[in-house]
């Protein structure tokens, strides 16, 4: 075989077209005579709708249709609750257009379809909705307090779900403990803020009865199934395409957003293509958000710092509805013990409704919150016991020989018990300690103090359950004319470079260059078995499915080539786009093999003619296609993981805090991470750096703000602070590759890795820097200058 592609820094295949502006995002797709959608959205966090007057809107020139709940027929229903769970005692989802009541500022109340977006917005402004506002409690603790105004009148205490999970025997362990550390932490709400907002366009072809939907979604196959079901169409008649998508980060895995069903509905009714391109303000008030959790965490330990038991009780803000179930809270619960042995765990959460934008996963999906809680608690335990932060971790990290490490009773998002399969946690910690040169830093810190500067060291370890099921598929076929390998899978990319990494996997099996592997994903017409892109699973699940299909394809190719070259299969090598007879110059190109394995009557091109120069591809007597044989070079296979495979890492930073400006600067940021074998280290690093940037956003800058009435007050890029390049420090990334034992490629996911530990790193660094000034603990992120000012003792 020629040089192996897996593991190399292949440059991305998608880049040249994207760089030339040739990407096709939803709003780029040319649709003749397309109509445009705008929504009327609730200006109240909670209100009853008395009446809706659409007369003036409908009279506006250029308006084609106006819809309210009364116009939706079969779609006037509660949208699906995607992931049911027994703990969800008060599950509520929204309707495509509100009927009778609104539950958050931004909720869709009416839809206008017009000749352009400008007119659609004009008309939306002419729709007169008579609201009767209701009292609200917006802050999570206020909403959870007894007597708080209810978001949903029939959901007591605003509790959407209540779940307790137990592993081991916490009560017994607590009784034996010699020391308890109690910490209360809070992570504030943020949002994915991908550069492309959400978008959906639809066209209904009356002649074929086919509905085509372009949707900037992370879940086209699942959307197709859902749409077919809701619109009562055959799945065969519904085609969903996720074209180029400008970032997803979890926000785009939720379905249905109201527009995702309403736009296809309108297209079918009106008979013209319809599109909805969310604007930035709408993304802030209509597309889901995540992060708010308040944890009260206890570590029960021996005097030597061995943590025997962990108890954690947290409130999770789910917003006004719970369409994605308890995924975020569940992932947080099952990640709460991090990389530590802690054999006894009691973890409880209550998902609380607040009259705000609904909460569904955003990159990290609860792991950042869990990491913040456990890491801050470990730091405090270390402090209270007089141990250093590295030592407390050394004493508690799961040791290499203890893998696989089962946390019976903690069920991960896939419904299976948490089983940390592999890792070298101790080594990762040593690597970061060495990289930081702790002794050197101690001296630097002293010297800085003498100059009146305040340096601190931040540290946090994280684990990340990745690659969960149920499954994904891979389909590969050699094209008979070009000899290129066409590959499909059921999930899609929003920038992760699938077209490159999956090509690398196939290239190795088939002996072709990665650029001769063409990946087509995100089109239900091309391949429609699969789930979606989320939870750092694409490389693991689709990667392995594609690998398995490529292995099958390779075997078929070798068998056919062996027949054509009249050698034994063991003497066939696949490389340079062809099959070679070992120790000779005889070869047959892949195109010819593909042609030859498709018995044709007509030699209508060169490849067909060339194929006839070799022995037949199939050696047998009887019909051209033997029983059980399929024509061509094609294979389909699936990968269904036994359970999640756990990646991990440790981040550290040297921060400087200026107590006069109350400003935090990151002088150095080091990241050790292990995602098993890396398909493409450059792409892995890109994912990690992007994740760290979002983590930094959550640590120092990003907080979705609501006033006491539930009005979003920073629904724009001026006041919601996504970091620029000037705010991003340099990052040093060191790789550790402990192969996953769970899948053939040995890979683990890395999509969310970067963002998980950053909040804890920054908080611990700031705390360390300001300790000499008596600033106390930093147990909430993002950390703002005002918070630092507040924490510093008055002069």
């Amino acid at each position, binding site marked *: 075989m020629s040089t192996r592609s897996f593991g190399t820094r292949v440059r991305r295949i998608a880049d040249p077209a994207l760089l030339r502006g040739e990407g096709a995002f939803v709003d780029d797709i040319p649709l003749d005579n397309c109509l445009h959608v705008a929504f009327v959205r609730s200006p109240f966090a909670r209100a009853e709708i008395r009446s809706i007057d659409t007369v003036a809107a409908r009279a506006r020139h250029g308006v084609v249709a106006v819809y309210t709940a009364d116009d939706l027929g079969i779609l006037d229903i509660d949208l699906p609750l995607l992931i049911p769970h027994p703990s969800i005692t008060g599950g509520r989802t929204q309707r495509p257009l509100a009927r009778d009541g609104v539950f958050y500022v931004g909720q869709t109340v009416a839809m206008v379809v017009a000749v352009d*977006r*400008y007119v659609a*917005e*004009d008309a939306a*402004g002419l729709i007169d909705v008579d609201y009767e506002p209701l009292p609200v409690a917006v802050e999570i603790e206020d909403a959870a307090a007894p007597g708080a105004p209810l978001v949903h009148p029939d959901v007591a205490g605003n509790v959407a779900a209540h779940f307790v999970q137990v592993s081991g025997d916490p009560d017994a362990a607590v009784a034996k403990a010699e020391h308890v550390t109690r910490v209360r932490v809070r992570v504030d709400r943020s949002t994915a803020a991908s550069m492309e907002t959400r978008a959906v366009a639809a066209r209904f072809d009356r002649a074929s009865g086919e509905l085509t939907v372009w949707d900037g979604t992370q879940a086209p196959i699942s959307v197709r199934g859902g749409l077919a079901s809701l619109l009562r169409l055959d799945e065969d008649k519904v085609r969903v395409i996720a074209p180029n998508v400008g970032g997803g980060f979890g926000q785009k895995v939720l379905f249905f957003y109201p527009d995702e069903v309403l736009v296809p509905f309108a297209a079918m009714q009106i008979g013209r293509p319809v599109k909805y391109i969310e*604007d*930035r*303000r709408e993304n802030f008030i209509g597309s889901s958000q995540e992060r708010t959790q308040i944890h009260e965490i206890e570590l029960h330990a021996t005097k030597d710092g061995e943590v025997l038991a962990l108890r954690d009780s947290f409130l999770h803000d789910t917003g006004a509805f719970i369409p994605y179930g308890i995924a975020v809270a569940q992932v947080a619960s099952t990640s709460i013990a991090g990389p530590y042995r802690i054999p006894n765990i009691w973890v409880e959460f209550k998902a609380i409704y607040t009259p705000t934008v609904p909460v569904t996963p955003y990159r990290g999906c609860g792991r950042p919150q869990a990491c913040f809680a456990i890491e801050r608690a470990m730091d405090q335990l270390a402090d209270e016991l007089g141990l250093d932060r590295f030592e407390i971790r050394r004493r508690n990290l799961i040791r290499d020989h203890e893998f696989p490490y089962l946390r019976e009773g903690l069920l991960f998002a896939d419904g299976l018990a948490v089983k940390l399969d592999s890792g070298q946690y101790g080594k990762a910690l040593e690597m970061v300690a060495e990289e930081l040169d702790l002794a050197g830093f101690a001296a630097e810190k002293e010297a800085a103090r003498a100059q009146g500067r305040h340096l601190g060291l931040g540290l946090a370890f994280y684990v990340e359950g990745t690659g969960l099921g149920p499954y994904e598929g891979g389909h590969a076929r050699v094209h008979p004319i070009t000899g290129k390998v066409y590959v499909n899978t059921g999930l899609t990319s929003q920038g992760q470079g699938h077209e490159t990494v999956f090509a690398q996997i196939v290239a190795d099996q088939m002996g072709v260059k990665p650029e001769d592997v063409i990946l087509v994903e995100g089109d239900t017409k091309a391949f429609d078995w699969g789930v979606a892109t989320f939870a750092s699973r694409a490389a693991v699940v689709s990667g392995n499915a594609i690998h398995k299909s490529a292995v099958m394809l390779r075997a078929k190719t070798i068998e056919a080539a062996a027949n054509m070259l009249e050698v034994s299969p063991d003497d066939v090598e696949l490389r340079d786009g062809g099959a070679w007879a070992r120790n000779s110059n005889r070869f047959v190109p892949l195109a010819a093999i593909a042609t030859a394995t498709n018995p044709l009557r007509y030699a209508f091109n060169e490849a067909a003619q060339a194929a006839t120069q070799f022995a037949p591809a199939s050696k047998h007597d009887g019909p051209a296609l033997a029983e059980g044989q399929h024509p061509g070079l094609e294979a389909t296979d699936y990968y269904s993981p036994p359970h999640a495979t756990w990646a991990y890492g440790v981040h550290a930073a040297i921060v400087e805090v200026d107590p*006069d*400006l*109350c*400003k935090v600067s990151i002088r150095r940021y080091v990241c050790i991470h292990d995602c098993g074998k890396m398909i493409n280290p450059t792409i892995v690093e890109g994912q990690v750096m992007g994740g760290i940037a979002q983590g930094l956003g959550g640590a120092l*800058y990003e*907080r979705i*703000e609501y006033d006491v009435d539930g009005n979003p*007050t*920073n629904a*724009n890029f*001026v*006041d919601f*602070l996504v*970091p*620029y390049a*000037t*705010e991003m420090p340099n990052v040093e990334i060191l790789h550790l590759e402990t192969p996953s034992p769970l899948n053939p490629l040995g890979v683990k996911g890395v999509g969310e890795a970067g963002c998980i530990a950053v909040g804890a790193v920054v908080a611990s660094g700031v705390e360390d820097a300001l300790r000499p000034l008596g600033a106390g603990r930093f147990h909430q992120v993002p950390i*703002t*200058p*005002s918070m630092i*000012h*507040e924490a510093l003792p008055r002069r």
Partner: protein
Amino acid sequence: MKPSVFDYASPTTLDEAVALLAGHDGAMILAGGQSLLPSMNFRLAAPSLLIDLKRIDALRGIVVADGEIRVRAMARHRELELDAAAHRANPLIRAVMAHVAHVPIRNRGTVVGSLCHADAAAEMPLVLTLLDGTVVARSAAGERVIPAADFFLFHMTTSRTAEEIVVEARFPALAAGAGWAFNEFTRRHGDYAIAAVGAVVRLGPDGRASEVRLAACGVSSRPVRLAAAEAALVGTSLDAAELEAAGQAAEGAVTAADDMHATAAYRRHLLATLVKRTVAEAAARSSGRAH
């Protein structure tokens, strides 16, 4: 986020523009559009008529004369930022420009536009206030010169009347031997200021401050001269204790309430810090002090 309907006019003379403005209730002036367009896209501004100044030749250009830098209404931020004569006349301006949004915004946005927009956290209104600059406003009745102190009334409110077009801003040149400095604190580079301070300092032959100008933005509903801090510093040798006292004296200028970006208490603390640092830097730049 698309603007609501409006009529559009692109006059070629100032008189036409003034007449259009006077003749249409709800008309607004369009120069660079970098403040107006976002506001229109959010539908916070909904003019009935937009009067675009772009074709009026008389509104182009920057002239340095008579101890002033005169910036016409269509002169872009970036033009002023890169103007060599203006920089020689007053280097403070180029230093401040680096903090005004980002280059692509400065390429299109105008200095006069920023002054008329009068965001309480904007840098150019601070500069005009610090230097005691003026603006020239033109209406059908003629022109009048408005000093900075009388121009900025309130966040996004100036004393320009509805029939006036501001045609020029005039920034005084820096006095010989004077030192200048500017410091701004923002959460991210290019954001509106949480607080910013500009200073101009002249030292007498005895090394004491003979003149101290201090202005801040972001701390109140308009840019403010820090009179109490100025008074505390004039005639002193600007040592650490005196700077400390001046910083504390400046805190009283903070009238902004707690908001999502800063508490009032933090703003006061920040302002004091910026005053100390900025005065020290300006003093170091002034020719009365050895380096």
